[in-house]
C-alpha cells in the first residue's frame, strides 16, 4: 500500500467525455437489490403510522424521542458490519445477513400484535439496515473504476431512492384493493424483499477485499480509521452533521407554516425523493470531475438555502417545493458522495470500516443536532431555530472546506 498524489481530475483526459462508459454491472445489481429492499421497507414504513393508530390503537404521543436508544445500537451495528465485512474479506455475506434480517422482519409483522412486538420487529429491520450499509458501499467502491466512484454511487442511490418512492404507492394501491388488510402488505413486502436477497446472493460477485489469508485485526482497523488521512474528513463530516436539522423537523416546520404543507404532509417526502432521484447521478458525475470534497461542501450550501426558505414567514406551494428541491440537491450532493470520498482514503482491506466510521459519525452528529434542535424549537419556535442553525451552518461550511482542502488529490492506490 502506498499513497499516491495524483492531480485529479485532469490526470485522465477522457474524464470529461466519458458519457458512454458504463458503471459496473455489480453496482447496478446492488442498486436493484436496494431498490427491491426499499420498495419492501417503505411499503411497511408508509402504512405503519396508520396501522398503529387504526389497528393496534396507539394514541398520538410522539415516540420519536425514544429513538435515541435505537440510534445508539444502530451506530454500533453499523461499525460492526463494516468491520465484519473487512475482517472476513467477504462483505457480500455480511450484506446478505443484513438484507436477510430486514426481509425476515416483514414476515414477523404478521404474528406481531402488541406495540412492544411491533417495536421489536421495526428495530430488527433497522439493525439489518445498519449492518448492510457499509459492506454494501465497500462492494460498490471495490467494483468501480476509481475515476467514476461518484457516478457509481449516484447510480446506486438513484435506484435505491426510486424504490423508496415506489414503496408507499404500492402499499396504498394494495390497501385500496384489499381494504384494511395490512397482512397483505406485510406478505407482499416480504416477497419483494426475498427477491432482492435472491438477486444479491445469486448474482452479486463476492469481491474479496482482504489480502488472502491475512485477517484484519481490530488494532489495524483502528489505526486505519483514526489515521491522518481520515481524520480531517471525519471531523468535517461530524461538524456538518452537527448543524444538520433532521428532515422530520423541516417537514414539521413547513407544516407549521401553512395548511398546504399540512394537507400534503405524507407527500413532502416523495417530493424530496424525486429531486434526489433526478440529481444523484449528475451530482456523482460532477463530483468525479470537480472533486468529491468540493461537491460535498457545496451540497451544504443547498441545505443552507433550504433552512432560509423554510424559515421565511410566508408559505405556499412554490416555497414548499423550493425547500423540497433544495433538500433533494443536498442529499444528491452528499449521501453517495461521502462514501465515494472516504473509500478512496483508506486501504482497500479496511474500506468497509472506513465507510462505516464516516457514516456513523454523521448519524451520531445528526442525532445530537436533532436533540438540540428539538430543544431550541420548544424554546423559540421553528423560524428562529432554523435561522440560528442557518447561521451555524454558514460558519461550519467554510471550516469544513478548510478541513477538506486538498483531500481530492490524496488517494490510496487500489
Amino acid at each position: 500500500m502506498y499513497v499516491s498524489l495524483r492531480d485529479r481530475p485532469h490526470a485522465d483526459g477522457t474524464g470529461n467525455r466519458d458519457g458512454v462508459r458504463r458503471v459496473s454491472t455489480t453496482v447496478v445489481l446492488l442498486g436493484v437489490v436496494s431498490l427491491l429492499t426499499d420498495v419492501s421497507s417503505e411499503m411497511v414504513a408508509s402504512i405503519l403510522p396508520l396501522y398503529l393508530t387504526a389497528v393496534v390503537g396507539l394514541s398520538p404521543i410522539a415516540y420519536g424521542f425514544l429513538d435515541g436508544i435505537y440510534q445508539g445500537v444502530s451506530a454500533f451495528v453499523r461499525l460492526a458490519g463494516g468491520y465484519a465485512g473487512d475482517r472476513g474479506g467477504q462483505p457480500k455475506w455480511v450484506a446478505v445477513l443484513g438484507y436477510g434480517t430486514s426481509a425476515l422482519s416483514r414476515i414477523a409483522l404478521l404474528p406481531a400484535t402488541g406495540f412492544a412486538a411491533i417495536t421489536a420487529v421495526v428495530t430488527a429491520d433497522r439493525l439489518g439496515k445498519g449492518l448492510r450499509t457499509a459492506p454494501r458501499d465497500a462492494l460498490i467502491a471495490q467494483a468501480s473504476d476509481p475515476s467514476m466512484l461518484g457516478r457509481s454511487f449516484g447510480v446506486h442511490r438513484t435506484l435505491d431512492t426510486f424504490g423508496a418512492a415506489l414503496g408507499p404507492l404500492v402499499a396504498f394501491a394494495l390497501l385500496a384493493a384489499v381494504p384494511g388488510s395490512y397482512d397483505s402488505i406485510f406478505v407482499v413486502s416480504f416477497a419483494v424483499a426475498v427477491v432482492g436477497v435472491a438477486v444479491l446472493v445469486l448474482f452479486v460477485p463476492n469481491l474479496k477485499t482482504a489480502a488472502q489469508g491475512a485477517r484484519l485485526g481490530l488494532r489495524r482497523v483502528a489505526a486505519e480509521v483514526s489515521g491522518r488521512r481520515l481524520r480531517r474528513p471525519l471531523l468535517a463530516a461530524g461538524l456538518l452533521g452537527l448543524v444538520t436539522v433532521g428532515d422530520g423537523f423541516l417537514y414539521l416546520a413547513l407544516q407549521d407554516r401553512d395548511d398546504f404543507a399540512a394537507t400534503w404532509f405524507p407527500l413532502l417526502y416523495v417530493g424530496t425523493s424525486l429531486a434526489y432521484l433526478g440529481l444523484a447521478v449528475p451530482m456523482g458525475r460532477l463530483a468525479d470531475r470537480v472533486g468529491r470534497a468540493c461537491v460535498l461542501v457545496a451540497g451544504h450550501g443547498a441545505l443552507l438555502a433550504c433552512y432560509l426558505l423554510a424559515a421565511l414567514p410566508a408559505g405556499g406551494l412554490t416555497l414548499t417545493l423550493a425547500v423540497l428541491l433544495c433538500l433533494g440537491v443536498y442529499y444528491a450532493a452528499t449521501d453517495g458522495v461521502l462514501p465515494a470520498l472516504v473509500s478512496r482514503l483508506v486501504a482497500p482491506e479496511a474500506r468497509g470500516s472506513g465507510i462505516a466510521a464516516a457514516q456513523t459519525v454523521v448519524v451520531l452528529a445528526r442525532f445530537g443536532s436533532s436533540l438540540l434542535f428539538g430543544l431550541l424549537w420548544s424554546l423559540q419556535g421553528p423560524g428562529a431555530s432554523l435561522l440560528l442553525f442557518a447561521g451555524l451552518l454558514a460558519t461550519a461550511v467554510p471550516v469544513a472546506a478548510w478541513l477538506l482542502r486538498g483531500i481530492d488529490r490524496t488517494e490510496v492506490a487500489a
Partner: protein
Amino acid sequence: MTLRVRLAVLGTILLLAVVGAGGYVWRVRHVQANLEAAATPVATGEALAPLRTQPHLVFRSTALGQQYGRVAVVPLTAPDGPRTFAPISCERVYATADQSVCLSADRGIVTTYAAQLFDADWQPTRDLPLTGVPSRTRLSADGSLIATTSFVSGDSYANPGQFSTRTVVTRASGEVVGDIEEFKLLVDGRAVTAVDKNLWGVTFADADRFYATAASGGKTWLVEGSLAGRTMTALREDVECPSLSPDGTRVAFKKRGDLPPGRWRAAVYDLTTGAETLLSETRSVDDQIEWLDDDTVLYGLPRADAASASSDVWATPADGSGQPRLLIPDAWSPAVVR
C-alpha cells in the same frame, strides 16, 4: 453455479414470490367478497324524519355489506332494533338535533380526507378544515362550536412528530377559532412549549370553556381551556379523550394507568370532588366516550375476532357498578340526540 442455473433459481424464486404473495392477496380479496355477499342485510327501520323528532342515537353503521360506513339512526327506545340509514358515509360522526359533523375518507392511492357539516336534512352546509386521518369530532350542545381531531402522520416511523395531531375548533358560522395546539398550555403553572406537544379529543362545556387531552414527553393530561383566553390548564394526569356528562359535573375518559401501550381503561372523573371511578368495562376502550344520560356511558369496541372489520357500541353504568351490555350491534361513533 453457471449463469443459466442462477437465472433458473432466480426465476423460480420470482415465480414463488409472485404466486405466493399474489395468491395471498387474491385469497384475502376473495374472503372479503364472500363475507360481504354472505352478510345478512340489516333490518331497516321507519322513515328518517319522524325518527329524528324523538330521542335517538346517530352512529356509523359497521354492518358488513353495501351500507358499511353509512350513518344510521335508531330510536333510544330500541337501539338494537332496525336502523334507518342516512344518505351520508363517515369514519366518525357526531350530531345534535339540527346538524351533524362528519369526518370522511376517500381511500385510494392518495387518500384524501374531508370534514363537513350537515343540516337536519343531511344536506352539506359547510366544509371544515381537516388535515389527515380522521380521529375525533364533537359539537357543543347548542351546535355552535365544532371540534375536529385528525392524525397528521409523518413520512416515517422514526421521525419526530410522526403521530402529530391537529385539533381545530370552528364556529358553525364558519369562523375558524384555531388550532388549539397554538393555545397557551400550563402544566403545574409552567408553560409547555415542547415540539412534541399534542392536543386531541375536545369536549365543550359552554360557549367558551372546553376540556381536551394534552400530551408531551410521553405524558397526557386533562386540560380545561378557554376559547376567548386561548389558554389551557392541566387538571389531572393520565386522561385521554375526555367527555363531559350532560349535567357538567363529571368527565368520562380513557386512561393508560399501568397497562401496556395501546391499551386503555375507561374511567370517570368527578370535577368537583376529584374522585376517579374505574368503570366495570375491563376490555381496552379506545374511543371518546359518549353519555347516554347522567348515569350511563357509551363507547365503541372492535369485534373480538381479529379478522372482522366490525365493531359494536356498548353501555355501562357511570358509577363503576353493574356490567357492560351490548347496546347497538355493528355500530361505531355513537351520538345521543334528545
